[in-house]
């Protein structure tokens, strides 16, 4: 089940979200923001167990899965559903509404941050914490940062 032009829907919602305060504000809001964009684009909640990496939901502020707001956990979640999320080689291979995760130096091979692509060809990104709107995808990013580039197929 897919929405009509899901990438566009995600993109538009991303713009809307950045115009106002975050609806929900968890510590390390970047992944919460990415999850909201994903859900606004039509990707449905899954499951009920907050600590299960196969589940992803935000029924209310207190009943939320770790995969919703925790960057390493959402990466694990994406990797468990390759029919819905496709890992690509570099953020420039992503499209609007796709997601990428950062592993900053000093590296530990675990993602530290998440953002949404809002321009085709990986051109621009939107993010929370710190809030950025339509900046070049690699702006202000330290040298040596690694990425997981996730194309949303759903």
């Amino acid at each position, binding site marked *: 089940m897919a929405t009509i032009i899901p990438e566009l829907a995600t993109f538009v919602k991303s713009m809307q979200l950045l115009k106002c305060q975050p609806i929900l504000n968890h510590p*390390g809001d970047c992944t919460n923001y990415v999850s909201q964009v994903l859900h606004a684009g039509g990707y449905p909640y899954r499951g009920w167990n907050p600590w299960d990496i196969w589940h992803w939901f935000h029924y209310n502020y207190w009943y939320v899965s770790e995969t919703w707001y925790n960057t390493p956990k959402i*990466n*694990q979640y*994406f*990797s468990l559903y*390759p*029919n819905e999320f*496709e*890992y*690509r*080689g*570099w953020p*420039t291979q992503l499209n609007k509404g796709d997601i990428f995760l*950062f*592993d*900053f*130096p*000093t*590296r*530990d*091979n*675990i993602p*530290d*941050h998440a953002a949404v692509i809002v321009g085709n060809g990986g051109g621009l990104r939107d993010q929370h*914490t*710190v809030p950025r709107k339509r900046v070049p995808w*690699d*702006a*202000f*990013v*330290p*040298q*040596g*940062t*690694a*990425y*997981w*580039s996730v194309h949303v197929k759903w």
Partner: protein
Amino acid sequence: MGKHRLALLVGLAILIAIGGVVLLGGLGNNSSTGEVIAGGVPDTEEAQEIQATILQAYKLYDIAGRTFDASQFPSVFVNDPDVPLTRDQRERLQEWFGAVPENAGYLTYVIACYTDFTRGAKLFEEAMANARAKGRDYLTPDEWRRIVELHGGRPPAPRLQPSMTVEDAQEMQKTLMRYDLIDVEDDKARVIFDDGATLNKATLVRRGGKWYIAGVERLAVTGP
């Protein structure tokens, strides 16, 4: 009464002005050797060497991420028994290699980190090469599951492929760096710096007249 109040106000203003001058002087000269500092960073040759060492580390991270070549790490990082790994770093070593080597220090950690990264990135590249040989530019779900399984259940990050050269990226990194503190005591330095995305506490040691990074602990993600 009015004159007394005026005199009191004038006196207070003078005292505040003197206090301000003393305070500013204190902020500007805060070391026993009288070196001028800005925000806790001494304006000395050794502070510049320390900054250059930290900047060089980012260059080596970049090179290793692009080429899988971590052979230059010993020119910047070192194991020092007085600078133990953090609990998180020990846990990562355990996760990557099933054990924490005896006497493991920061050099061991960064080499292990890039060894693990290289292992995952190569799995990704090999799988992509096989897919391309079959006329695809993407991995099937089964191919992806296989490389995740081979990488210990963790999604591998691919090789770094920035369009910017290493040298240009280093110039950019210079503009992102902010040093909050460089505190040198004999052959050891404590440094707090922000690299544009993370705030870090580093310990450097001087060996043979050269500074090496003996430990880095992340304090916070601040950006990018």
